[in-house]
């Protein structure tokens, strides 16, 4: 290279490297679709604007799976992941997550410490909850013009409401819905599922619709199945149906009876490449205002009590988000809170039974 060009090139290179050194990067993994979009808008973009760092957003059907693989292989590329409660507890028990000290989380605007501001159960040793979501069922209003389904038992009534049903492929949530549809009160569901008779009863109820079920695995599938007309009713994550109904104007209606509430939590895998930045992102994203902001993009409840008053309108500027929250009082008449302890213990056995039931005839 000519010497004349060398000096400007060196300056340019130094400038580029200096610039790159300033911009930190974190990799955040979430569930994809409308949910990832809500996180990008509410957490990632504001954090990038505030700190000048870059967020690399990746998706998975279940972010818990890559975590175990990466930590065991000693090659972790994810800094922050959004996982379900039972996965957070299980991964923490197996030593695959970094501990998170709740005292480092920001307090509520009125000074309440974070440990008291988060909803009961939202903080664990290795995880911080961000949202409360719910597994509900939804139907297409154009399909049922006379009687409409209103209870969880109606989901299993293919005589009165003909058509296929959509269910998430797995034992979780399906066994509880089956028992509730069979008339078991929400408070007794998990006690019953610990017994063989209870499990048999749940599978017997599922047998009544087995031939009509279309099994989904990704969160974006149920709204698509409803839109295609492939199913008449389907269980789904409530925020995805809301996004299709209000955001895209589809004629979907959610039935809140028999909903199963759960948390989604942020975790940091052990050996994450950018631990400090990951903690900074986590603290920012679970702050009162940010949790309230995500409700602008998807109908999931914030995990902090102090966020509730800040929940306002949807991004379209018209829809009140309050009635669409899983935790809204009118939706909680027959709700079940998912028991992570139950699933941490019984998922092996029940998933095996479920797989055998599914594969058999």
């Amino acid at each position: 290279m000519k010497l004349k060009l060398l000096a400007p090139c060196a300056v340019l290179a130094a400038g580029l490297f200096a610039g790159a050194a300033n911009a930190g990067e974190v990799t955040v993994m979430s569930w994809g679709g409308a949910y990832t979009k809500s996180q990008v808008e509410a957490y990632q973009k504001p954090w990038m604007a505030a700190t000048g760092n870059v967020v690399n957003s990746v998706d998975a059907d279940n972010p818990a799976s890559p975590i175990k693989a990466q930590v065991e292989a000693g090659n972790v590329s994810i800094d922050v992941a959004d996982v379900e409660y039972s996965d957070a507890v299980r991964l923490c028990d197996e030593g695959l997550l970094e501990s998170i000290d709740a005292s480092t989380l920001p307090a509520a605007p009125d000074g309440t410490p974070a440990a008291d501001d988060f909803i009961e159960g939202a903080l664990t040793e290795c995880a911080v909850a961000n949202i409360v979501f719910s597994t509900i069922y939804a139907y297409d209003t154009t399909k049922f013009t006379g009687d409409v389904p209103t209870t969880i038992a109606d989901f299993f009534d293919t005589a009165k409401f003909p058509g296929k049903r959509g269910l998430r492929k797995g034992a979780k949530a399906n066994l509880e819905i089956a028992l509730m549809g069979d008339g078991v009160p929400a408070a007794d569901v998990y006690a019953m599922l610990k017994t063989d008779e209870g499990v048999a009863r749940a599978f017997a109820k599922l047998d009544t619709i087995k031939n009509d079920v279309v099994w989904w695995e990704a969160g974006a599938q149920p709204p698509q199945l409803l839109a295609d007309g492939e199913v008449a009713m389907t269980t789904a994550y409530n925020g995805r149906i809301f996004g299709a109904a209000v955001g895209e104007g589809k004629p979907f209606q959610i039935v809140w009876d028999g909903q199963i509430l759960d948390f989604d939590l942020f975790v940091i895998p052990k050996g994450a490449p950018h631990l400090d930045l990951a903690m900074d992102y986590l603290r920012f994203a679970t702050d009162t205002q940010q949790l309230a902001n995500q409700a602008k993009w998807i109908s999931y409840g914030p995990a902090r009590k102090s966020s509730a008053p800040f929940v306002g309108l949807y991004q379209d500027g018209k829809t009140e988000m309050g009635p669409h929250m899983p935790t809204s009082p009118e939706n909680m008449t027959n709700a079940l809170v998912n028991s992570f302890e139950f699933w941490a213990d019984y998922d092996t056995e029940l998933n095996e039974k479920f797989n055998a039931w599914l594969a058999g005839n």
Partner: protein
Amino acid sequence: MSDQAASAGTAVLTTADGMPLKAAQARAMRRSRIRALVLVLPLLAFVFITFVMPIGQMLYRSIHNDSFSANMPNLVRYFADHEELGVPDEEGFAALAADLAAAAKAKTIGEVGTRINYEISGSRSLFTSAGRRAATLRPPYKQAVIDLDQAWADPELWAVMQRAAPEYTPSFYLAALDLTYGENGAIVPVPEDRQIYVALFIRTIWLSALISAFCLVLAFPIAHLLATLPLRYSNMLMIFVLLPFWTSLLVRTTSWIVLLQSQGVVNNLLVAIGAIGEDGRIQMMYNQAGTLIAMTHILLPFMVLPLYSVMKTIKPSYVRAARSLGANSWTAFWRVYFPQTAPGIGAGALLVFILAVGYYITPALVGGSSGQLISNLIAFHIEKSFNWSLAAALGALLLFGVLVLYWVYDRLVGINNMKLG
């Protein structure tokens, strides 16, 4: 050369520079073999590092699981010294208490609980809750631990722990074959409502054989056409065969969903022309039919291409000779043409079968419940239940099954009779 002529019977043959012919030959062969090896070495290294080593590691996982043995050393030592299964005495409980406290401190108690949870549900919380209170335990340990939870007095739990103590265990292979240890350590089938794997293995092999057969029936005419058409048309046809091959697998699979679902294109067309009623829509998706159709379509190029390359080498003069000697079309085809394509059929069928046996994306998307294959359960154990040892055992059994079929094929047809071109 004159040397050889002069001393034909007894003297050793030599080359022009005096070296014995045999030695010179051996040296030349060795050189060319080394040269060939050096050329292949990068590929061998690549295959070893990216294929043999990871697969070897997974197979190792299927018999090696040290979740218990690495984290509960005192108990492992106790079990090594005492053979009986069942609830132990004070010494055993002392070992348990020491191990629980140490594992809780090292945060490995969850791993231990998970390992036992594979066989007895509820063990995970039993271990983790005992671990939390293990530091406060005082002798007599047997009473102290049983006071924590009555389950610690269950002989079944101790039998499972004793079996989990060694690093190397066949229990995952047993689970993969729907077997388990019953009373007194005898091997018994698992309860009826948990038997899945054997049935799925059978279904996988049957569906894969069916897919290979469908591919053969569809691919044979295409390959024949490709091999016999003039160049201009066969090039065009080849592009039609290869274009789907180059399209993303997911795009092809989801296109089938759009076409075959009950509100999809095919059903809507049939209803529109009146062939079926609104209620009589054909279920071609989310069941075995969906798996068969989609996988046949996706694996078709793998059957077309080997058949095509073999058919290209078949001289048309043989069939013409047969016809001129009086054979009709069918006889000429069946007795002269078809046997010559056998190597291509063998190659294509084997390729399609082995690919079909391992496919999991397509059955997962379009198979519903009746079109699921064993590969879906292997994926389930890797991604969802994180029981990698069981997934490895299932994979190892699948590999073994395929190798057995390969051996049978070799005996029946002969691997040397397989040509890819």
